[in-house]
């Protein structure tokens, strides 16, 4: 096996994390999720800083943990590199001592000075962490982790400890460093820009369950469920109340889909850049403009559909948009509409569909809109 296999079951009081992932042996995997979703715990489990009840972690040919065989490799022996959220530099050691900490005695000096050179830390060798800027600390932490040539690099929110101004510069530098690495990287983050720029693959984790996993364009383009969509920055979400052959609908109107809708669809998502102000020929819904914001190269039009659903439309800065208060026709290109399921565990939904839900689906299948009671149920669920 060349890639990384992570299959874990971890419980701590009322928190339960279940993950089963197989990653290729190179590239950057970003684990996205809200606070408390278990993304940092996942990283700590892979690093061996926490021990799960049941687990299998295999990196290449080397098993790090296999509870079935009673095998456990302590973090000291895993040959990984980890960059902590606040860098966790050794406050009592200089930059050079920090970088050299994990290195064998022989050749230590040479490797340290290579990394000092590579990370542009010249002249800072004898400084202590408290004498460094945020960016310099990040570079020291990266150098310290990379100097050991780890088989796997783990990054825990690598840019969260720096302010916005510095972020873009550090992101670029991180991108440049990560691009040169031959080993795989797992990065935990909740920063979408960071993810888009750095990650080859994304895993979306919510409530201890991996909701979505795929390549970065795939996942950003089709989140799959409501919670993943929200985490991935999707703001245009339409509650689906009924469905029929080739179309779904709600209090906002009716929209045709490519193919027949799955009975699991609970929401419809569309990215702001894919919405058009009516120019005929495409299906549309009535909307009213609320506000226009200039965002540099684009304009953001905030509008509401007839049932009050808020939507955001991104258009180029030089394209005319309706003025606030104006009514207009908003167009939804069918190829950009993404059906979303409610957002519970996908495997659970696929395996055991609740009976009540099935009935609801059958009613939907016959065409007429659902009763008010069913609508109320669904609204309560989505809330």
């Amino acid at each position, binding site marked *: 096996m060349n890639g990384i296999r992570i299959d874990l079951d971890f419980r701590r009081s009322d928190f339960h994390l279940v993950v089963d992932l197989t990653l290729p042996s190179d590239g950057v995997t970003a684990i996205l999720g809200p606070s408390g979703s278990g993304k940092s715990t996942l990283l700590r489990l892979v690093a061996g800083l926490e021990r799960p009840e049941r687990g299998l972690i295999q990196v290449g040919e080397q098993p790090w943990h296999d509870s079935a065989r009673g095998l456990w490799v302590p973090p000291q022996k*895993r040959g990984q590199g980890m960059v902590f959220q606040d860098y966790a530099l050794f*406050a009592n050691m200089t930059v050079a001592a920090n970088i050299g900490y994990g290195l064998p005695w022989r050749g230590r000096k040479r490797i340290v000075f290579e990394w000092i050179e590579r990370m542009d830390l010249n002249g800072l060798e004898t400084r202590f962490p408290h004498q460094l800027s945020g960016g310099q600390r990040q570079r020291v932490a990266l150098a310290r982790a990379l100097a*050991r040539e780890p088989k796997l690099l783990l990054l825990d929110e690598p840019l969260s400890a720096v302010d916005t101004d510095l972020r873009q510069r550090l992101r670029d530098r991180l991108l440049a460093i990560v691009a040169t690495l031959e080993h795989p990287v797992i990065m935990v983050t909740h920063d979408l820009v960071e993810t888009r720029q750095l990650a080859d693959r994304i895993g979306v984790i919510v409530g201890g369950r991996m909701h979505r996993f795929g390549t970065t364009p795939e996942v950003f383009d089709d989140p799959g469920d409501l919670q993943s969509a929200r985490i991935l920055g999707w703001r245009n979400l339409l509650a689906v109340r009924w469905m029929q052959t080739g179309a779904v609908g709600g209090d906002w109107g009716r929209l045709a889909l490519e193919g027949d809708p799955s009975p699991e669809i609970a929401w419809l998502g569309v990215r702001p850049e894919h919405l058009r102000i009516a120019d005929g020929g495409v299906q549309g819904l009535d909307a009213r403009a609320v506000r226009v914001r200039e965002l540099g190269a684009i304009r953001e039009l905030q509008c509401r559909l007839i049932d009050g659903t808020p939507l955001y439309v991104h258009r180029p800065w030089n394209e005319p948009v309706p003025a606030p208060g104006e009514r207009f026709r908003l167009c939804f290109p069918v190829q950009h509409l993404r059906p979303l399921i409610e957002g519970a565990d996908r495997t659970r939904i696929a395996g055991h569909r609740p009976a009540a839900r099935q009935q609801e689906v059958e009613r939907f299948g016959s065409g007429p809109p659902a009763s008010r009671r069913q609508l109320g149920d669904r609204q309560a669920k989505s809330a």
Partner: protein
Amino acid sequence: MDAQEGLDLTPVWLSLELAGVTVALLVVLCIPLARWLARTRSPFKIPVEAVTALPLVLPPTVLGFYLLIFLGASGSAGELWTRIAGHPLAFRFPGLVIASCIYSLPFVVQPLQAAFEGLDRRAVEASFTLGASRTRTFLRVVLPGIRRGLITAVVLGFAHTLGEFGVVLMVGGNIPGETQVVATAIYEYVYILDYDSAGVLSAGLLAFSFLVLVLVYGANRRWHAELRL
């Protein structure tokens, strides 16, 4: 001045020896205890904390009384010791060390516990992920991380043992050359109205305590780890 010429310095050396041995033993014992207290979620934490803090609130004579019973010839520890060594623990230097360890325990445990609570756990974990063993992590990351607490613990433990009176008098019995320390010697000089000797010893104790505190706090402020490559 006559009194000074004939001043017996044995209590001074005995005090220093007692404080040194006590602090050394306490540091070794209290590092694991303080680490456990700082990290545990066990229901035993509160009772253990209360027991270690007892010497802070108990009158020294009460503590000394129980220790005298416990360490004396008919006490459980004293009896065992008598069988091994041929004499009881009470009124001997080893008994004094045990009593001092118990009496000074909170002064060593509490700063260490606070230091462990403030220790950067991530730095310890970072050390593990960098392949360092537990021993190396303890020496290079944990010890420097708790050094302020450790210094405070050593200073307080040493000074407190040096100045203890009640427990030493109860358990040690103020036997010259055996268990008479500076504090009890001062008491005896005052008792026999030798104010000059009492004054010299008191001034010495005051100056020594002050000097130790100044040196340790001063060193603590300027202490930086050396670059080790």
